């Protein structure tokens, strides 16, 4: 099984310095695990792909378990999609993994979708776990939904899958891996710069909407909406018998729907 992993030039969330994007390292772990268990006769291979002017700290991915990293060199303002499409088509990969969205670039998360469209492959979003499907040539993807729920999808390969931060943590960094791994540099064919019609300014955080009662609610309701999450203001039982306390707790939990009704 040949797996390609798209690596983007990220920036660290706090320091803003160039760094790999954490979710892409998680994707690398999923890929490495899948290649090991599902390698089959030929043994699985994982190849990292990066399109950009410099490889920079993306070599860290080698330390996290990547064997081979391909750097498609292109100017910073060029559109990476055509070069990546060409490289992915030429590589004949069964599975292409990508992060959910970049962190440090445009950060739209649109590139995997345009690649999937250009390659004519199905795309699945938000994988938290990957396993070979029951049939040959299929992949079972556990898609992360909110609150720990999952959806198991079976898709026919080749496919493109984006990875969710709920996936298992990246493999620990090993310096020997970094030394062992290879970086291959290729010059990408020149492409037109991506159209850029946005104006950019320094970021200014905007106030988030606070919980608000519907318009026309009474003052008491507005106050309640603003403070209900911050204060309990509920029931207080002082020194009840343990049985009584237990009954109260269960009744309360049932009323809130947190445990199954009797």
């Amino acid at each position: 099984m040949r797996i390609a992993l798209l690596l983007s030039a990220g920036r660290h969330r706090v320091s803003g310095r160039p760094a790999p994007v954490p979710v892409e390292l998680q994707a690398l772990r999923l890929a490495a695990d899948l290649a090991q268990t599902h390698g089959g006769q030929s043994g699985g291979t994982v190849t990292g792909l990066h399109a950009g002017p410099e490889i920079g700290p993306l070599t860290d991915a080698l330390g996290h378990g990547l064997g081979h990293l391909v750097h498609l060199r292109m100017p910073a303002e060029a559109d990476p999609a055509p070069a990546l499409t060409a490289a992915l088509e030429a590589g004949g990969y069964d599975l292409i993994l990508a992060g959910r969205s970049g962190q440090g670039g445009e950060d739209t998360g649109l590139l995997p979708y345009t690649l999937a469209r250009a390659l004519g492959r199905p795309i699945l979003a938000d994988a938290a776990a990957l396993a070979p499907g029951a049939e040959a040539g299929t992949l079972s993807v556990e898609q992360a939904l909110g609150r720990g729920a999952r959806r198991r999808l079976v898709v026919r390969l080749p496919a493109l899958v984006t990875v969710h931060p709920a996936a298992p943590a990246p493999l620990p960094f090993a310096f020997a891996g970094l030394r062992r791994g290879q970086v291959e540099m290729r010059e990408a064919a020149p492409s037109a710069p991506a159209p850029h019609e946005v104006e950019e300014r320094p970021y200014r955080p905007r106030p988030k909407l606070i919980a608000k009662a519907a318009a026309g609610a009474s003052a008491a309701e507005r106050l309640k909406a603003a403070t209900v999450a911050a204060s309990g203001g509920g029931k207080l039982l002082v020194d009840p018998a343990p049985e009584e306390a237990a009954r109260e707790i269960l009744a309360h939990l049932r009323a809130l729907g947190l445990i199954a009704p009797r």
Partner: protein
Amino acid sequence: MSRPRKDPRMERAAHLVPGGARPRFDLAATPATSGRLRRDPRAEERLALVPGTLRRRLDRSQRAPAVSVVAVAAPVEAEAAPRRVVIAEPAFLVALVPDAPGGRLSAHDRQLFGAARLLADAGGGAVLALVDGSSEELGAAGADRVLALPITGYDPEAKALALNAALAALDLRHVLFPESAEGGDLARRLAALSGEPFFAGAESLSPKAVTRAARGRRVEQRRAPPRLLSLAIDAIAPHAGSLHEALPVEFAFPETTGGALLSAEFIPADPARVSLAEADFVVSAGNGVSDLDTFRMLVAALGGTPGASRMLCDAGLMPRAAQVGASGTVLEARGYFALGIAGAPQHLQGVARCEHVIAVNTDLHAAMIERAGLAIVADAQKVMPALLRLLGEEGAP
């Protein structure tokens, strides 16, 4: 000032008791008609008093039948019905695709309606809701037109194809999506399919400009609203105030063939396995819990996710991954059940977003007790077995 001028002589004259040799005034009697109503604060308080609570509690919201002592002169204005708005000939259409999990609009979906109304009302446009199944709340949420998508089950590719057909044929000026897992996925599929410009995760929106964060939240991008937009949560207020007609429209969607998706199956969360950040209900132990085996049994019996305060994690009694708080995990859970936790500020930060908190603690003055919706001042070592016994009794028959 519209207030009538006070005339003390007239007021006094109104209290005059007729008859008798000397003029007599009964000041306690209510003057017959002065035009203005007189407040009786004591009676109002009696009305607002909530019966059956140990401490005196007043409910001034007047949800209880408000029978005032003095007869109300002016009739109370009837609850103003929401204004009905009909847009017969829209200048353009602003479409939106709510997630509507289980057929009900989420808070994010309602904010999406607010954004769509903002764009539509600026130029006499109408809001078109593209939904899987129709529901009654759409009119009140702000939809002028409703179009049902021919989608069954989980098939985002087919949905994107249907949306693409509608986008081309109906000449939609904007299509709005929530920037949620499902909505964001769909928006990007449609953007890749149609090749239209797409603006992801808009954080502010007006008919002239939308903004979003980029380059690791260091840069704000700004442009005129493009055709496809996804909206971040809690950015725009939901629509309120007017009722729209939610008129169903017909559209012939092209037939779609099955995609590469072979099967889709929903797996509910397994509380014992989910990470704390994702958990829905967390049962957590602090330094006041010494019997951790009972605690673990209780967590399993309640179907919660185990958590702990830093004291237990530092002592090695619970794994570090279970730590709740500023230096552990900040919870998104709906319910939090704290056993023997004092509620240090660092810990309370972790539960700031929990809606319902239950606390068991021996100390009446613990901060956790103050924070809790149901607070029980008791020994956790006795309450835990009692809970287990009760759960066992219920499960037995």
